[in-house]
C-alpha cells in the first residue's frame, strides 16, 4: 500500500483548509449535502503527467471545489455565493493553483434548488511508497 494517497495528501488537506469557511465542507460527494456547502471533486482531465521520469508518479491534479448556497432569492443567493467564494479563495492553501471560477448555475440537489459555482484549482502530487 502506498504511504500517501490523493485523498490523504491532496483532497483532505484542501477540505481541512476550507473548514474555516461558513459552510459544510466535504472532501467527497455526499448523498445529501446541507447548504451552504463546499464539495471537492475531480475536474477533467483529472490527472496530468507533466514531469519527467516514471520511476515515481508525479502528476498534476485538477480539482473542482463546488461552492453552493440555498437558492431562495436570486439577489441574496448570488450575494451569499459571492461571499462564500471569496472566503474559499482566501483559505486555499499554499501549493494549490486557482485556475478560474465558473459562472453560477442553479442545480437541483434532492428536493431543493441550490446556486452553485465551480472553483477550479490544481496542484501537484508525488506518489510515495
Amino acid at each position, binding site marked *: 500500500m502506498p504511504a500517501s494517497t490523493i485523498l490523504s495528501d491532496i483532497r483532505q488537506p484542501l477540505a481541512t483548509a476550507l473548514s474555516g469557511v461558513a459552510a459544510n465542507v466535504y472532501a467527497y460527494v455526499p448523498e445529501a449535502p446541507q447548504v451552504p456547502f463546499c464539495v471537492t471533486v475531480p475536474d477533467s482531465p483529472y490527472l496530468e503527467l507533466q514531469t*519527467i521520469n516514471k520511476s*515515481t508518479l508525479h502528476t498534476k491534479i485538477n480539482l473542482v471545489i463546488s461552492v453552493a448556497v440555498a437558492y431562495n432569492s436570486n439577489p441574496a443567493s448570488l450575494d451569499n455565493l459571492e461571499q462564500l467564494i471569496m472566503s474559499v479563495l482566501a483559505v486555499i492553501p499554499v501549493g494549490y*493553483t486557482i*485556475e478560474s471560477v465558473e459562472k453560477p448555475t442553479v442545480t437541483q440537489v434532492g428536493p431543493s434548488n441550490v446556486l452553485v459555482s465551480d472553483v477550479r484549482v490544481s496542484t501537484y502530487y508525488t506518489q510515495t511508497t
Partner: protein
Amino acid sequence: MATTVITGRDISLSFTGGTDIEAQATSAILTKTNVRETYQTLDGEAYKTVNLEGTFALEMLADWGKANSVCEALWTAAETAPDTDISVTLTAATGAQFVFPIMPEFPTAGGAGTDAQTVSFTFKVSKGAVVETFN
C-alpha cells in the same frame, strides 16, 4: 519491426548532491553541437570541427522552501562556487545514459498571478564534455 517511441517520462535525471530534481523537472534537454568552420576552397567547401559545445535546458516547477530544494541548492552553488562544475546524469531511456558537467546558474524567483512558479535554465555544459554510455 516495431517503432520505438520514448517520451519525457522515460528520462531519469540526477544532480550531484542528490536533490530531488525528478519530482520538479517538466522538461530536460541536452544539446551537444560541433562548432564547424567552413572553408571555401578551389575544390569547393571544406569543413573542420574546431570545438565542441553543449547546453542543458531545464524547465522545472520552483521548489523554494522545500527540504532538499533544487532551486536553493543551485542558488547556493551559483553564489559560492560559480565556476565549479555540477555533474548531471541524464538517462534518455534505458541503455542511453549521458553524464556531463554544468556550470551553476541562479534560478529566477517569483511568478505571475495564480500560475505555478516555474524556473527555466539554460546551463552551459563545461567544455562540451558529455560522456555517453550506449548499450
